[in-house]
């Protein structure tokens, strides 16, 4: 049985195509997903992300508990700031990628993916046993609404007295938005400026409607998971289950910088990750642009001279480049040699390796 967010009725009234995502009925698109994608690049898009998990870690040793449980140095985080980090197993395999917000000296909010948050909450609780810290999964109480795109500050600014100019990228502050108590974070998954608003479930529909009204003259449109996926792909952001998983370490994914060996104390996965950091990875995560118009998709083999040398993890037609783009794991020697193709349903289609991200916004 699929779960619904507090905004399901709104999506249905907007004529959304709903899809099952990690056990949730979520909007895939409302009309044209390309139009939604372009609206976020040029104006703004409104997203329901209430399927994400919010886990609160509180107490005098909350920071130390997170330092032990995660790969990052969270106790060093300034209150009001956020950090992209990961939770790994003893072998260094990625259990989830996370954004951790420090709400106060003794209060952190860990935002986890829909498919993983129950497991993450369990792991955090198990790993915090020796610390004076409390782990509480409040995912069921919170809705998450994101407004993303170059006009998003203007739209949100009309509904709150909060100092949005002073709110930096990867920062968070509590505020009143359209009469509702919210946590406003300047974070996102689109490659654009934007905000993520954490509110109580009961406030989700009025907040959505207020943002929708405030943005209607400025080009804001509701945007579904299809646009979210192509936006994050163009921005070169990894997706758990595609680029990241228990079989990959942060170093495999080219994200070794999130592992902080310099922090005090031991952390779960340290020994395995120290080894991974020393060894030359056998495969690399690379960006690919197709020369033709057929799209390399998740799971398609990357080939070279007829031999399989890797696998596509994500692929889609890129609105911004006008060509299909993909992210793939490719054997390091093959990536260096070039001349790659992707096996698209039996035909070897040429692709070129490019630096990620595919798209970078102009500030």
């Amino acid at each position, binding site marked *: 049985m699929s779960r619904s967010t507090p905004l399901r009725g709104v999506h249905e009234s907007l004529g959304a195509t709903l899809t099952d995502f990690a056990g949730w009925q979520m909007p895939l698109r409302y009309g*044209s997903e390309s139009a939604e994608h372009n609206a976020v690049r040029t104006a703004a898009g409104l997203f329901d992300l209430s399927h994400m998990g919010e886990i609160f870690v509180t107490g005098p040793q909350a920071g130390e508990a997170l330092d032990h449980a995660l790969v990052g140095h969270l106790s060093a985080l300034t209150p009001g700031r956020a950090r992209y980090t990961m939770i790994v197993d003893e072998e260094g395999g990625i259990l989830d990628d996370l954004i951790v917000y420090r709400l106060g000296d003794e209060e952190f909010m860990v935002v986890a993916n829909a498919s993983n948050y129950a497991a993450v909450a369990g792991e955090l609780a198990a790993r915090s046993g020796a610390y004076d810290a409390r782990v509480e999964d409040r995912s069921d109480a919170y809705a998450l609404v994101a407004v993303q795109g170059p006009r998003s500050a203007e739209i949100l600014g009309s509904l709150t007295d909060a100092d949005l100019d002073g709110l930096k990228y990867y920062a968070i502050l509590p505020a009143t938005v359209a009469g509702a108590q919210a946590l406003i974070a300047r974070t996102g998954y689109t490659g654009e400026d934007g905000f993520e608003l954490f509110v109580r479930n009961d406030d989700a529909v009025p907040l959505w409607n207020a943002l929708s009204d405030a943005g209607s003259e400025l080009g804001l449109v509701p945007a579904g998971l299809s646009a979210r996926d192509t936006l994050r792909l163009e921005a070169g952001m990894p997706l758990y289950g595609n680029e990241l998983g228990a079989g990959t370490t942060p170093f495999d994914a080219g994200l070794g910088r999130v592992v902080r060996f310099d922090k005090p104390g031991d952390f779960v996965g340290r020994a395995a990750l120290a080894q991974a950091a020393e060894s030359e990875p056998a495969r690399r995560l690379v960006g690919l642009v197709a020369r033709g118009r*057929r799209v390399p998709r998740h799971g398609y083999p990357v080939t070279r001279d007829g031999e399989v040398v890797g696998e596509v993890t994500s692929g889609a037609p890129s609105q911004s480049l006008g060509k299909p783009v993909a992210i793939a794991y490719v054997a390091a020697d093959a990536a260096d040699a070039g001349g790659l193709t992707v096996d698209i349903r039996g035909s070897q289609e040429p692709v070129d390796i490019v630096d990620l991200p595919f798209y970078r916004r102009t500030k």
Partner: protein
Amino acid sequence: MSSIPDELSYTKEHEWVAGLDDGLTVTVGVTAFAAEQLGDVVYVQVPEVGSTVAAGDAVGEVESTKSVSDIFAPVGGEIVETNAAVVDDPSLVNSDPYGEGWLFRVRIEEEPDDLLSAAEYGALTAAES
């Protein structure tokens, strides 16, 4: 509810067939229902003019942001014309699936007996949506 013109015939694979009555050549495209299910179409591959196809053969593909679907020949025969405009601008499949978004024309050599009427196709899509 997407439109299902009465005068066309349909396949279970969500193609439409026009011109069956004259018994010579038919025009083939994908239905409005299929276009809606696919989302924005970004790439269309049509069969080669002059090639001979059997009913049920996979002869092309329609690719959207999220997925790709084969196009099957609804009738057997020779491909006599393909729509260059839809290859250039695949969004025609979304904007005008029964008109400018047509895909190819076949000179019929083998007429199948399992094409659906508009009413039958309507019942099929009602069950799938």
